[in-house]
């Protein structure tokens, strides 16, 4: 390849790839530098491990980290587990299947915060859930369902919001498996669970990995669901980051949390992706 050609290719790639790399690179660079004491809004810049030390030592941080990891894992795995049967069910068109799949995808168009508010209304003291519970006699007085300590509300919202996305990816993948291949598996003695485990899942593993990773990253960085519907005794990473910045402008510590969140996203996605492969292909074939 001549230098002219190389230059041309670089020039063609620059508008797209270049912008992406510069944006990601600069954000990442600033966050990392800030966590080590540079890019201060006020005061002198100097290298320091103090911010890392303070954050890592705080109990709040370790709780936020494990809480966000927990929500992200449950959201990713839960959405995929719920989406698979639906994707398989919708594999071949039937009367009404288009309407069903359109309805299932509706949450994609509802912004998270709006969904959160709707959800709060539904489970409020005088919301329909409590009315229903009282009407069927399950309880005498309304129960407090909001901001529950088990984070069930957040998990519900995460699944509600991410299931359609997993469904979108998995439906396409499942549809690309031919009927005859599934019939062959059946003919060779595979019942429905074995057909899923030995044929459908391995053949759709890439879509599954993509769903797991994207949902994990989104849920790990959740702010909207957590501040509206989340438990009040624990913060998510994003929430904690905002909290640090808002209380006494601890920008450097916020940056530490930010970098840790990116680390969590990267590490978590890797683990999920590898896990999906190993479980589904017995680790034998990549």
């Amino acid at each position, binding site marked *: 390849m001549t230098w002219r050609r190389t230059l041309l290719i670089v020039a063609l790639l620059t508008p797209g790839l270049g912008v992406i790399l510069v944006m990601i690179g600069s954000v990442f660079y600033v966050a990392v530098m800030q966590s080590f004491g540079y890019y201060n809004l006020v005061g002198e810049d100097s290298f320091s491990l103090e911010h890392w030390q303070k954050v890592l030592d705080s109990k709040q941080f370790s709780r936020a980290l494990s809480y966000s990891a927990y929500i992200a894992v449950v959201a990713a795995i839960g959405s995929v587990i719920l989406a698979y049967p639906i994707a398989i069910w919708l594999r071949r068109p039937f009367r009404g299947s288009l309407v069903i799949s359109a309805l299932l995808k509706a949450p994609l168009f509802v912004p998270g915060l709006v969904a959160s508010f709707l959800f709060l209304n539904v489970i409020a003291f005088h919301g329909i859930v409590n009315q229903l519970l009282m009407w069927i006699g399950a309880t005498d007085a309304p129960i407090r369902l909001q901001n529950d300590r088990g984070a069930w509300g957040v998990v519900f919202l995460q699944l509600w919001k991410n299931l359609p996305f997993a469904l979108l990816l998995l439906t396409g993948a499942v549809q690309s498996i*031919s009927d*005859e*291949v599934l*019939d*062959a*598996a*059946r*003919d*060779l*003695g*595979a*019942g429905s669970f*074995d057909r899923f485990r*030995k*044929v459908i899942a*391995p*053949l759709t593993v890439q879509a599954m990995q993509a769903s797991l990773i994207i949902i994990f990253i989104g849920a790990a960085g959740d702010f909207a669901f957590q501040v509206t519907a989340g438990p009040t005794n624990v913060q998510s990473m994003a929430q904690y980051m905002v909290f640090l910045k808002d209380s006494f402008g601890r920008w450097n510590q916020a940056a530490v949390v930010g970098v840790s969140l990116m680390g969590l996203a990267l590490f978590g996605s890797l683990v999920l992706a590898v896990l999906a492969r190993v479980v589904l*292909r017995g680790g034998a*074939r990549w």
Partner: protein
Amino acid sequence: MTALRSIDVSKVFEDGFTALSGINLSVEPGEFVTLLGPSGCGKTTLLKIFAGFYAPTTGRIEQNGADVTNAPPEKRDTAMCFQSYALFPHLSVAENVEFGPKQNKVPKDDRVKRVNELLRQVDLEANRDKLPNKLSGGQQQRVALTRALAMRPSVVLFDEPLSNLDAKLREQVRREIRSLQREFGFTAIYVTHDQSEALAMSDRVVVMNGGKVEQIGDPEEVYQRPETAFVADFIGSANLLPFERVDDHTVDTPLGRFTVDDPPVADSRFLCWRPEAADYGVSEGENVVASDISERAYQGAYTDVHIAVPGAPDQRLHWPGSASSMSDRVTFRLPPDRIRFVRGELG
């Protein structure tokens, strides 16, 4: 005891389409039976009913005397060879072949031995670790066959297994299938719309049309003694003539008066003769026809000749020799024992 039997089987799909009606078929153990018929006549549907993918709308399926009508495919002692091969794209050749035995919990040692032996037999050992998409069409077909045989099924169901192969390979795999069948002794039901394949491979041929069985017989029977106009026309190219009965052994046709050995019966509709049945160079005696030639097409081994006779369209002859050696007129004789009568309509 019959290996596989369908009793009054019919199939009406959800959209109300009747794909099969009144199918009665008994297949003996070790027999090679082909289902032959035009596209859309219900061959695959019947095969899928035998395999258990479809439940018949009415009727029953018996295997070795036991009713299996409602048994799912995974519980039946049948293995299917699909037209598209349907190999598992994520598994190697050996893993594909091992799938069935593994599913049926055959112990590992047995399983490995079985797979190795089969792969050696079909000459695929060198490819055992390849993924299916790295194989040629013929090799994929052999993997599909091997995968079915690894189940040691008593019945193997083939759905047009050779239709994606070129003529030469088809011939070779066809012989391989037959020899494997003799060796393993499985019962085979083989779907095809290729009549020469059906005639060459089968112990018995089931000719189907429009969801019904037209005729069942050994290859010679369905070729030499077709019972319906459809069978005569679909297998080989028969000439069909309307006729009037004079007496038991004499009929009048647009080609003239013929003496016949087998008399027509009440529902006989056409007189039927094969293009290659005519004796050429005979110009005297009974059953002699002389006619103008309307068209000729050189075919190599013979010349396909059409003759023009009012009231008898599309009568063809196989003239043994080249087109240039012919004049514009042809004279031939139809031997009385080569003339049949068939019932049914012209398609």
